[in-house]
């Protein structure tokens, strides 16, 4: 069997002013072809104005098993949220 084309992750900016957002992935031999294919696969209905392609193999991801150590520390820091503070209505909008 011939060598399989690498997998690319596709990010699309749907309109200026918004972030690029991950929409899916596809196989392509190189970055240029990945962009062309992404145009055909993910923007057939004007879903985008800009495309990023990133080789899936180049992405480093946090491990699901690290979810606790990584994100739990944020749990007990309620004081980071504005609703933690009771401000009397008399003060007006804040």
């Amino acid at each position, binding site marked *: *069997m*011939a060598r399989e084309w690498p*997998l690319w992750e596709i990010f699309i900016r749907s309109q200026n002013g918004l972030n690029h957002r991950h929409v*899916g992935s596809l196989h392509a*031999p*190189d970055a240029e072809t990945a962009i062309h294919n992404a145009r055909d696969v993910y923007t*057939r209905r004007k879903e985008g104005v800009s495309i990023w392609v990133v080789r899936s193999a180049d992405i480093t*991801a946090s491990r*699901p098993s690290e979810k606790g150590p990584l994100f739990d520390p944020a749990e007990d820091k309620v004081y980071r949220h504005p609703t933690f503070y009771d401000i009397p209505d008399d003060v007006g909008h804040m």
Partner: protein
Amino acid sequence: MYAQMVKSEASNDDPGMLAAFQARIDRGDKIEPKEWMPEGYRKTLIRQISQHAHSEIVGQLPEGNWITRAPTLQRKAILLAKVQDEAGHGLYLYSAAETLGISRDEMFEQLHSGRAKYSSIFNYPTLTWADMGAVGWLVDGAAIMNQVPLQRTSYGPYSRAMIRICKEESFHQRQGYHIMMKMARGTEAQREMAQDALDRFWYPALMMFGPSDKDSVHSQQSMAWKIKINTNDELRQRFVNETVPQAEFLGLTVPDPELRWNPDKEGYDFSQPDWDEFFEVLKGNGPCNRERLGARVRAWEDGAWFREGLTAYADKAAQRRAGAATAAE
């Protein structure tokens, strides 16, 4: 459905882990690729998603048959866009399956060798232009019936693929119904073609939901895992309830003498398709099985030189870039 009769796989996992996993599903959590999942969940999903993907890909063939013979340039453009969408649906689903640890080439190999199944519906011929109407209206209609609830499936990548697909599917059904309207209100010969298309596609469309799974252990497991949301019979009933009035609007007759509104169940009573025929088609003995798979394999093999060319070009360009980088140092 597009994935008919998916056998679920048993899991030999730790009972505690299995229970915790089930609790996540029951809570409505979505499962994402690298997270722990039972082996059975992973294998069943690979089978189901790849079967669905194969159906989208093979499903292009019966309609591709009519692209060069569409009656107007606009109908041709519409059909081309529809068939291109189906290719996209196949790609979204293959990508979703790949997140579970199977490669694209492995899935192609399973399809091309005949080991993997695709929906029985695509093994029926498309004989006249009215069939393009019947396919969009009934086949895409039945697909929508199944895919809409699957948007809530527990596996994240599958759910996201379904959401994307459902957004595009509605145009498919409407363009098909639009063709049927034109034909049903056309000349007597055109009306007859429309009726004939409905006659031939009605029962194969009902088969798309698969045989009754009331007593199937497989579907109970799949439903517990939320990779199947409704029973086959539920979806088939919904499809009949929705489609019969649409046929009446066209002035066409559903080819079922037993079809009757049943006020008690607020739905139609209807005849079951010929399940022997269904199993024969699944086994490979439908009217077009050999032709469809043959066309698919030929397309893959005829495209090999092109795929290899692109790979060679990419390798060369990478070498050139690397060479330029060292020269600059």
